């Protein structure tokens, strides 16, 4: 699905969807980044919540978003302090502020770690790990 030469660490943890997050991961499998939106007060949550912290409702819908945003913060793992990152350092992990407001932890697949810069424009790039799991990753958006 991805056109980029980004190697995901083969032993890096995968999400283990549960009954509260199943629809989010199911949406990604179908090619859609879904945000949880409260049906009562319209607050958007990421990660999804069980109860709306704003108004107390349990009544949510899923809304597809485009997945544009800017780099809010980032870290670069140099020492493979976790065994899954051995042979994959330096490894960039990004925190992206989506245009809709929520911030999402992810990876950027088309830049080197040293190119990361807070404020850079990013857009969604779906990354199919296996038939069960598709991850919401990001690419740097170059303005032509």
């Amino acid at each position, binding site marked *: 699905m991805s056109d980029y030469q980004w190697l995901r660490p083969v032993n*890096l943890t995968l999400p283990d969807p549960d009954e509260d997050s199943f629809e989010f991961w199911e949406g990604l499998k179908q090619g859609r980044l879904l945000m949880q939106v409260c049906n009562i007060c319209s607050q958007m949550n990421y*990660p999804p919540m069980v109860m709306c912290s704003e108004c107390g409702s349990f009544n949510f819908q899923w809304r597809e978003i485009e997945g544009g945003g800017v780099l809010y*913060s980032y870290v*670069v793992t140099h020492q493979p*302090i*976790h065994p899954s990152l051995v042979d994959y350092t*330096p490894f960039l*992990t990004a925190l992206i502020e989506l245009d809709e407001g929520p911030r999402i932890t992810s990876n950027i697949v088309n830049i080197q770690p040293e190119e990361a810069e807070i404020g850079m424009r990013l857009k969604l790039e779906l990354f199919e790990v296996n038939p069960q799991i598709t991850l919401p990753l990001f690419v740097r958006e170059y303005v032509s």
Partner: protein
Amino acid sequence: MAFMNAVTIAGVGETEYSKNSGRSELQLSLEAINKALQDAGIDRKEVDGLLRWSVDTSPEATVAANLGVEDLAWFGEISQAGNVGAALVANGAAAIHAGLASVVVIYRGVNGRSGRRYGRGDVTGRSGRGSAAYSEPFGLLTPQHGLAMTARRRMFETGVTSAQFGMVAVTERGHANRNPRATFFDTPLTLEDHQNSRMIVDPFHLFDCCLETDGGGALVLTSTDRAKVRPGPSAMVRAAVQGGYSNRGFTDTAAVALSPRLWNQARLDPSEINVAQIYDHFAPFVVFALEDYGFVSRGEGGEFVSSGEITWANGSLPVNTSGGHLSEAYMQGMNQLIESVRQARDESTSQVQDAQFSFVDTGIGTGAVILERGD
């Protein structure tokens, strides 16, 4: 009005700090507890309260059996991670103040280097379950990954620099070089050493990161009236609060929410504190805590550190006077609680003169204690 000196930390005890203790976490706990009870002058059979870190492995009932406790009236754990020491003091002091227990021991014993290692996610990893599904699959695998993310953004927002973080590490090393118990007693550290040290998780250099330590520590809490049998100055609990969750901004530590409760309970202002122990799992968080507890304004912590204000003996607020987690030992708040008691009792190797009020934070907003020196 919570405790206001009605409860005293009457005894402290610790084992040696090492990379390989050669004994069980239970034994380390019990050795430390015995020393703390001897220090307090209290018989171990009189202990009726036991509190511990939930991430530790020595259950209260097992410890009680080994101590020969007659009637365990108050026990429990506080969950989260290593950052609950001050919260345990608040809990134990509350039990004593309410009359639910009379001698509460807070203890830990960890083989944090030779056994389960925090820094590798051994203790805190969640295998992509629950909220970890949204972080671990992208490489946020250990406590320091998330903290590095916060630190990077706060550097962007306030302009604080890696060299200013480095001065935290250099300052604490200087304190450790005066403390024979410290892991880095014999090894100096320069700012150049810090800046040249390898990146672990950028923006954290090696010397921004805490040690990993095997060891044990214990505190004995009892009423201030009962604690008076021990001669010399004492460490009374002026105030103790718990915290750890707040819905503040991304770069605000939990101290932003907790701080007003602390100062209000203590009836003190930050400027009245004489010496501070601050949870330094990573050096940048000492700067952030100084700001979020109100010792300095947001954005001023880096300069405060660089200009020597946290350095013993001439700084206005010496911080982590035993060497802290960066240079003494990583006992996750326990060694800092012990050092805060030493400061109140005139026993530190970097003793602050006339230290009437001794502050300790054990997790950047997860809890804080202010001790007042008693006669």
